[in-house]
């Protein structure tokens, strides 16, 4: 039933996007691009966090949702937190994109096969739901952010069909989505006032995402963290044994706090372009 609703949303929104593109004076529907198809299908799913939570995830071999983290710590989730209000506090948040904000020290990349495995209980939306609740305006026809989300929640991994459509039609070139360059055309979601959060695909997986499994593709961390923290080091060792990529990079320079993002982008360019 739930899956059907998500599939119906996807089909409706793909149709709406095609209509928007075909409107008189509109950008027009581009012919299917093998580049956009390949990038949208192969793009990894990312999760970045703080050094403390990263080390904890390495120790526990799992990424946990805010709800499970609170339960395990013997406390309740903050009741007015965005994800509680949006009904997503039971989810681990990932992005079908490189690491974005606000973390700069460490992160995990997962293969798209993670989405295939979580097709029955996961979901995606073509925007950041956290931004929707606070920063990004949604069309007046929807009463609440939750109502808007309910109509724009897509199944895993099929949301990549919508991603492909946007990559080939809204962006100047498909790579712009990955590189964080804003689209040339706004699209028809009716969102306003945001930044990359308006068009970055968010992937939500209930409860937990195991780290030591077949979906982990790459691990990124400041060199000093890998060397000084035993849990992070243990994960790097596991990755070495399992042929999972390990990227230990320089800590921040004098004025550069973009290293995690740029390391991730370089990695994706090597793997996908």
């Amino acid at each position: 039933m739930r899956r059907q609703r998500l599939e119906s949303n996807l089909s409706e929104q793909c149709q709406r996007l095609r209509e928007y593109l075909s409107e008189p004076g509109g950008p027009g529907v581009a012919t299917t691009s093998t580049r956009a198809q390949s990038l949208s299908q192969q793009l990894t799913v990312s999760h970045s966090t703080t050094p403390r939570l990263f080390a904890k995830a390495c120790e526990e071999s799992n990424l946990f949702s805010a709800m499970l983290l609170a339960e395990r710590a013997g406390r309740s989730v903050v009741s007015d937190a965005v994800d509680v209000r949006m009904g997503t506090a039971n989810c681990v948040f990932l992005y079908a994109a490189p690491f974005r904000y606000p973390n700069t020290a460490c992160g995990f990349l997962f293969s798209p096969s993670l989405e295939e495995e979580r097709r029955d209980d996961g979901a995606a939306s073509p925007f950041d739901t956290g931004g929707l609740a606070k920063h990004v305006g949604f069309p007046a026809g929807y009463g609440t952010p939750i109502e808007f989300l309910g109509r724009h929640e897509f199944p895993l991994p099929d949301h990549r069909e919508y991603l492909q459509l946007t990559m080939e039609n809204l962006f100047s070139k498909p790579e712009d989505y990955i590189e964080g360059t804003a689209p040339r055309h706004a699209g028809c979601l009716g969102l306003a006032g945001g930044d990359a959060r308006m068009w970055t695909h968010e992937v939500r997986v209930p409860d937990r995402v195991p780290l030591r499994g077949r979906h982990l593709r790459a691990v990124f961390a400041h060199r000093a963290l890998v060397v000084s923290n035993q849990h992070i080091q243990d994960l790097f060792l596991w990755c070495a044994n399992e042929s999972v990529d390990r990227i230990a990079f320089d800590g921040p320079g004098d004025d550069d706090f973009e290293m995690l993002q740029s390391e991730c982008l370089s990695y994706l360019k090597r793997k996908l372009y």
Partner: protein
Amino acid sequence: MEIIGYADDRDATMLPAVVPPVFRLKADSDVVLLPPYSLHFDAVVRATAVTMEEAEHLRLMEQITLFPAGGQPAEPGHQMWLHRDGRRVYQPVHEARRTLDQLSAEAIERAILQLAKGQLDLAEDSASEAILSNDRRVEPLAIKAAIRRRRGLAAEARLMGEIARPLIESGAFVNLVNYYTRLITAIEPVRPVLKSLSPMDAIATIPARAARA
């Protein structure tokens, strides 16, 4: 602009560390700037702007740290870093770099002394502090590799070599690891065997061997 926190959260074993400030516009206190970004004198480039409410949410999610006592003025050419004891320091970049490098050098000296005394756990901690203070130094990596080699952890020792690769040619790194390994071995050549001896045997043998070394 003022600084109202930093986009990081770490425990004491992950300090010292340079951290990216969370900025807030003085002209509009509801505009908060988050990394990734780069700083160019007094400009913050390619930051993500969020509202104060969103910043507060990120604090609750333990993704950023906000100062409980409010903001402090942002200064061009300054850097924020956290001391090993958690103390926050905000100073000109060149001073921060010099202080951190000094801390790193002191921690390396300490680690070498501890290695020579066979205090391997303490030497590990000192080497961690050294690399956290300056991650371009290779000595802490070599010290850690030597300790792991001494403990029979070959894969962990190899990992140190892998991490050191962008910083030093592999032959030079191996030489450095050999040097530190000899330093440990010179002082406590047969430490695992000592466990089976009586405490008096140990007391009798360690100084004699150390003296010969």
